[in-house]
């Protein structure tokens, strides 16, 4: 029985008197695509923020590859192989697209306390960055100022940055948010290609994408995990249908 690559134990987070994460226990197995779904306000983004380290849980533990990372800051988790994309594109708009990704490569390529030499010219950083851009499908935009990208291209850049970190676990926070049908299909294809190469946690509202991609699904309602299981089982579960999927009929 393989060990989970990511384990959440009894996570709890309150904002004032509002309980946002309510005793969440979850296992993510290596190589799987694990989707987390739930209605708006279920606490999905807060959960992702706790996993990546931007929010500190009030109670509970987070174990990554067996090690307790609950107290580690985001940069430490990133260096251990935990990478994430943001729901609202979080890129460096003033930098070129290539540099955005090259920085992600740089974080792993030895010391950044180097005061000499033009970083933008380093082939050792640019080559892997280019490769990540190709994977994400926006290699042709490499030298454009990132702030000038279209919304869909920015989502692709988000993904490229995340991939360039050579992660063990990739957190995808609503990658399909706000992009059209065609681009969604491209993203789904890309993620299908990545399946098996790394572990992915996908937070999404787009049910078609979720069911096309997920190996297992966890349903989050009001901060609690209602059920975790294979897509067909989750789909058919009456509690889930009642609480959530019922609203999602398209």
């Amino acid at each position, binding site marked *: 029985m393989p060990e989970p690559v990511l384990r959440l134990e009894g996570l709890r987070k309150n904002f004032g008197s509002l309980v946002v994460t309510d005793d969440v226990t979850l296992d993510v197995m290596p190589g799987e695509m694990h989707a987390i779904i739930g209605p708006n306000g279920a606490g999905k983004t807060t959960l992702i923020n706790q996993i990546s380290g931007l929010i500190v849980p009030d109670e509970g533990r987070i174990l990554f590859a067996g090690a307790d990372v609950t107290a580690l800051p985001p940069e430490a988790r990133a260096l251990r192989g935990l990478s994430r994309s943001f729901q609202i594109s979080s890129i460096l708009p003033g930098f070129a697209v290539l540099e955005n990704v090259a920085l992600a490569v740089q974080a792993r390529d030895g010391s950044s306390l180097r005061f000499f030499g*033009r970083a933008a010219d380093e082939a050792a950083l640019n080559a892997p960055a280019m490769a990540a851009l190709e994977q994400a499908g926006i290699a042709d935009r490499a030298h454009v100022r990132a702030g000038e990208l279209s919304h869909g291209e920015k989502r692709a850049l988000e993904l490229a940055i995340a991939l360039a970190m050579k992660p063990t676990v990739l957190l995808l926070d609503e990658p399909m948010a706000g992009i059209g049908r065609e681009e969604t299909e491209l993203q789904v294809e890309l993620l299908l290609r990545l399946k098996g190469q790394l572990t992915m946690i996908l937070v999404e509202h787009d049910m078609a994408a979720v069911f096309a991609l997920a190996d297992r699904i966890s349903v989050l309602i009001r901060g609690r995990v209602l059920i975790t299981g294979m897509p067909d089982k989750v789909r058919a579960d009456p509690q889930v249908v009642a609480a959530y999927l019922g609203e999602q009929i398209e």
Partner: protein
Amino acid sequence: MTGALLAAEGGVRALRPTRDVVLATLMFLVFALLPLFASLAAKQYLLDIGARMMVFAVAAVALDLLVGYAGLISFGHAAFVGLGAYAVGILSAHGIDDALISLPVAIAVSMLFAWLTGIVCLRTKGAYFIMITLAFGQMVYFIATSLAPYGGDNGLTVAARNTIAGWPLLKSDRAFYYFTLLCLLATYLFCRVLVVSRFGRVLRGTKENATRMATIGFDTRRFQLVAYVIAGGLGGFSGFLLANLTEFVSPAYMSWQQSGELIVMVILGGVGTLDGAIIGSAAYLIAEEWLSGFTENWKVIFGPILVLVVLFARGGLIGLASRLWRRSGHA
């Protein structure tokens, strides 16, 4: 194509590389030729003003590193200048006046102070950061005023300019002027190289989106602290030059008004350009010279000018020049 050139300087209101080199070369050429002009026009005081411009420019360039590239608005930068100056003054008062000792001490003291206070300051963000740097600057100021054996409020006269390895090479004003020019050039080149290095890129990225940089894997606070210490050291360097220029050290060198003036110099020239810091220092001192010819209370005029610059002349003098250049038909 132009997009790529501009993008390479990520997130910063940078000039295109060739134009930047031209501007920098011009600036330093003007400074280099000033003494010649001064003696031809028989206006020796220009030498003093020029030297002052360059001394403050060293501090301003360091401050631009913090403000314009690292996004750290430090309102206590004068403290480093003052510490450097006092290092020279105090050592001199005890008979040690060789630059080979005074300079490293000046830089070391300011770097130490930057490190100790930086650890605390960088735990805060935004406005808290501004105010805590302001307060630490005040702290140093008050310590200086209470140093009775070193002049306290009135300051301390330095017996003579520092010697270099025993030789009084800086005694002549002209020699000191060129020495200062070299120091400014070195500082400028160092900062230019720094901002495009790996380290500089992390700083600029952090200014743009700190959360993103953290989730990529950078301990942003550590990099900011290093930047803060470097800027502090350069501030101390400026203080060393200041003490030698005026042969006097005073708590006024580290007052918060002085910190404010340094920020003004950076803004006036154009924040985030490095050249702007030098231009701004020159512009500020020129304004001071010119306006105080009208009235002793020249700041009554300068204050509103400052407000107008903030409201209407974004990007300072360089920004203004850029816009005029573009408007006159050049791309």
